[in-house]
């Protein structure tokens, strides 16, 4: 996409021109990241796009429509395509363009979103299975037999009748993310915890589940899957629902952090020193913080450096480091794990900066390429603590009503870094 291969899928007459201008616009911005998601194109159209992976999904709008509806529709298209095709890339889309076409024609009807729920879509357009495709292509024999398409029009459109599983299981994953900005001295600038409750359901029949959390009151601002009865939640703080089959996101929540202590599983500090105008040193130290005695794992610290940086020397105590220079130089430091016993994990980056060009101080900032992405001077941190819930929210109980078979329940907690930044 970046190089300009525009897949004109669903490219019906009126779109062509806008597509050209939009592609031109994308090339004009210094990085895809900086392209305005809602871009007002000439000819009275508006180009709304999202980026997922290496692809850009574009919706072209010529009349009033809620802006977020378009973004959500594009998001829905991506989700559906992932469900049908798997990994999305230019290649896989080309290979499956016919499926993409069929899906889009079911999802969007003359410009308005109709069906985006994948469980409903599955009834309308059959999911191509790998086995079918291999048999069909290699043997050249026949064509896969088609099931009669059908949609579920019951009051629970997300769950169809007559689902059977030999093993009845229900898994709950509580994934919490810490969004935090930490100052160089380790002080917390901003801190926020949000989480998702994802479930995997393999249950027979039409079970009705009741999920009770221990600190339901601490979860404020909860967003639910449509299957959750919101009235019950408001009345009793219990999630009652008829689960869809398979993987789904039951709820996402946010923790009111004003009152709660600000627990950071990872204590980070940074020191930046300038030996001279050209020579800089960044030192980052990482120590285990409060993580309920669990191991902090998969720690990754990514430090983007200014575009003018060169002669980069990196040392680290503990972990491994890598210097990449794809578009901008950046240093990545990975630590497998960090336990409270580990002390003094440290990364030292020394680099030199080319003197700004002779054009003067004003010029480099104005030119888009180096100026706009010229090192945000922060490190982006990623980590994971398995088995730990930073908000101490736990599942109290999971009960099944209606159906009466035995079911296996599993709960897992993970705390991850969301947008976790260390400022210098």
């Amino acid at each position, binding site marked *: 996409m970046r190089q300009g291969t525009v897949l004109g899928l669903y490219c019906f007459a009126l779109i062509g021109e806008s597509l050209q201008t939009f592609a031109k616009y994308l090339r004009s911005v210094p990085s895809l990241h900086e392209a305005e998601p809602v871009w007002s194109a000439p000819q009275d159209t508006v180009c709304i796009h999202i980026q997922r992976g290496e692809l850009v999904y574009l919706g072209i709008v010529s009349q*009033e429509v809620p802006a977020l*509806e378009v973004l959500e529709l594009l998001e829905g298209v991506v989700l559906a395509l992932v469900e049908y095709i798997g990994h999305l890339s230019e290649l896989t889309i080309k290979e499956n363009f016919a499926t993409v*076409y069929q899906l889009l024609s079911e999802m969007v009807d003359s410009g308005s979103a109709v069906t985006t729920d994948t469980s409903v879509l599955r009834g309308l357009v059959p999911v191509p299975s790998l086995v079918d495709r291999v048999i069909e292509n*290699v043997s050249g024999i026949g064509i896969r037999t088609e099931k*009669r398409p059908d949609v579920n*029009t019951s009051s629970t459109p997300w769950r169809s009748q007559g689902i059977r599983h030999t093993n009845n299981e229900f898994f709950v994953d509580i994934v919490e993310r810490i969004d935090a900005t930490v100052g160089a001295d380790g002080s917390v600038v901003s801190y*926020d915890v949000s989480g998702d409750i994802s479930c995997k359901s393999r249950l027979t029949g039409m079970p009705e589940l009741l999920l009770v959390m221990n600190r339901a009151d601490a979860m404020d601002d909860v967003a639910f899957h449509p299957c959750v009865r919101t009235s019950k939640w408001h009345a009793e703080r219990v999630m009652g629902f008829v689960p869809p089959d398979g993987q789904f996101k039951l709820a996402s929540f946010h923790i009111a952090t004003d009152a709660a202590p600000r627990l950071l599983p990872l204590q980070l500090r940074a020191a930046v020193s300038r030996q001279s105008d050209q020579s800089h040193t960044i030192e980052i130290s990482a120590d285990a913080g409060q993580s309920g005695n669990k191991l902090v794992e998969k720690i990754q610290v990514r430090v983007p450096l200014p575009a003018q940086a060169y002669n980069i020397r990196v040392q680290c105590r503990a972990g491994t480091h890598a210097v990449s220079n794809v578009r901008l130089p950046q240093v990545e430091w990975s630590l497998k794990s960090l336990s409270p016993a580990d002390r003094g994990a440290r990364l030292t980056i020394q680099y030199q900066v080319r003197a700004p060009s002779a054009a003067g101080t*004003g010029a480099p900032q104005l030119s888009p390429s180096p100026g706009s992405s010229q090192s945000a001077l922060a490190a982006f941190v990623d980590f994971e603590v398995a088995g730990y819930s930073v908000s101490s929210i736990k599942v109290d109980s999971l009960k099944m009503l209606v159906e009466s078979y035995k079911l296996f329940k599993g709960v897992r907690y993970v705390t991850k870094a969301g947008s976790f930044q260390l400022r210098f």
Partner: protein
Amino acid sequence: MAEYLSKAMALAQDAAKLSMRFSEGLVDNALEFGLDTPGSFYDNAEYKLALVRKELGSGSDKDKLVAMKRLLAAVAKGHDASEHFADVVKNVASGNLEVRRLVYIYLLRYAEQEQDLALLSVNTFQRDLGDSNQVIRAMALRVMSSIRVPVISPIVVLAVRKLALDRSPHVRKTAALAVTKLVRLDAGLREELVGIVETMLRENSPLAVGSVIRAFCAVCPTRYDMVHGQFRRWCVMLADLDEWGQVELVKLLVAYARTQFAKPVGDSLDADHALLLRSIQPLMQSRNSAVVMSAVSAFCHLAPQTLLPVVARPLARLLKAGRESAYVVLTNIQQIARHSPAMFSPYVRSFYVAAGDPPFTRRLKLQILAAIVSPKTVNMMVVEVAGYTQSLLTDIAVGAAGVLLACARSVRESVMDCFSSLLLMLDDGRPEVSGAAMQAVCGLLLDGTVRDLQDRTMTLYDIVCFLVRKMDGGKLTDDGARACVVGLVCAFMRSKFGSLHALEVLRRGARSFKEEGAQAKMQLLELSACLMLAHRAQEEGPLARMLEEYSEKMSDIHAYLFTLARYDVDFDVRDRARMLRALCPLPGDEAHSEQMPRVLEIANELMAASGDNLGQANRRLDQKTAFTIGSLSLTVDRPMSEYAALPEWPTVKPPSVDRGTLPGTRNVGGGKVDVTSVTMTQQPNYPMSRAINIAGISGRAQPYSSGPEYSTPRSAADHDDLDAFLNSADDSSERVVHVNPRTAFVFQQSEESSESDISSSESESESSGLESSASSEERQSTEEEDSGESSDDERSPFTGAKSDSQPSLPSGPSVAYTGFGGRRGSEDEQAHPLMDGTSQHWQ
């Protein structure tokens, strides 16, 4: 042994041959089905279009499928594949559903071009309409209604009429969607379709209601009489609809409520109005951001002020949903914050600029930060923003200057911190940054915010000198900022040091005149004119005496500047010079000096309007059309086609109508419902009036607590404050104050009164020209008592500003120079018609 070996050899050869043949076969096969390299089937499709006819004619579904894929791939890449239309249409009744779906896609692409051939397919569709499978029926109707061939529309209408009563909600949903397409194709069918839509409105399945609403909005969006009967049922049903349906229904119900309910006054609502809000509120917990936003929009446009704060939290949550939706959400928050910023103050941290934020997000976040400053959050905000001033990204640093300005203006306690941060920024190497800081500093000095600093280690006079020195040395290169400094000197001129000061600035300015930018040039010309006028208008008095000895030099400089300006490359500069020269003539020119004050003021307004960049950005924000929250028009900031602003609240209370019964519950007919029951999380109410002005970078934010300890001088009173400060600091001020006040003020006062409301003209008539500062305070205190019903917090700053400015006017010198403040005061007044202190709704 040898035999054994040769046998083995033969075996191996056989095996090799076999495997070779097998792999060759595979390759052949793969080639045939386009698997040689991934994606090549798509890439090469247009070269094999010649095969399509044969393949479509063959009996094998597989061949047909391949042919259709080739065609669609070619279409997708922009090739014209219409020549195969006839062959394709033959397959419209194919037994294979996948083939059929692809045929449909192709058909819709080319039907408009090949109308006659397209008609051939209609029979098949009509047969499918009676199929036993609901998906087939729906698909047939969907495709048939999507064929943009007007000839068949009567047939489609018939089909819609029939399937609108289908037993499957999926089919009914498709029928409703077909209605919208029909209206778009042929507006003449509208009358006929209204009847069908009316039957559809009784729809009970949550699956189909959304599409029915869409059909209603397409066919007869204003037939609210048809909505009455469904209203309560829909309110209750709202939670069960699919997400797209919820968005549609909320949109319709908001428009309905704006025409059918009275505008909420206080906390009492019509029962149905309350029911609607109560039904919409849970949608803010949807996982779908479009649904959340539609609910937020509904609250913004329908809910009474007390309920509005519930939208803040969902909006803060949406910010995290990713780069794309964050952008849209921020544009909406920005508009909401213009009217009610206080509700966002618990979420200040959500608007901190994070590393990795793209430029558009940074810009919006900074603007919102400036808009939502409040006493509670100001401390942490100033610390945070002070960090931004050193950001390597120029736009963040420039935006930070605007936020600091807003902080200082709205919260007294933070003035010192903000001001010192801004002064530090002046040394920034980047001209944009130091320029923005300078503009902010000048702004703070001009509107008197910096006046009552507790810590007077540096007097105002020192600060101005300090700023003026910044002009030299080549560091301050930003044109707007230089113009600001000259403007500051201009406004400051009336103090006894000021005029000497001004003369020196003018002298230096004259030397560097040709290097200055247009704005600074104009401001220098004005300074020159002001000095000349001060000199001429006052034959006596300290100012005149001081200027006396420089008079000759001044005239020379004046003449020099105007001669240079006359031949300037910039149109505006030449124009300004011509005008000023006519009014403040050089020796030998014809004189009209008695009108100078008036024109200078106008000139200054024009000047400042072009010079004050930060203020300009702010004003643009204020004047931004208030689009419906959540609409695309708001995000792109221009009306999209088919954008319809929400109707205004009805002026007379609409008659009550029967809105149906609540399914499963008792009737909530009539009576008033206490609104507090609508929300579970009610937050403190912040009056709207305070909020309105606080918008955007460098917002002219208003003081949060204008208690008696600060007399919040603003706008019109700016320069007088400077004087007042100097006067109080210097005991020899007496001389300056009483300078022939009558001559020059005749005009200025009348101008003031024309700008201000009745209260100020009253005060003018009461006050004689000279009034002591004591009586001005007295006046203010009575003013506060008068506006007793609104608390100090709510008081709009203008009443304060006016009551201040009016009495102190005469104490100024006779140069009728209204600083930026006067202009701003009047502008703000225009920009904010809602300033009456009552809670108002916006559209």
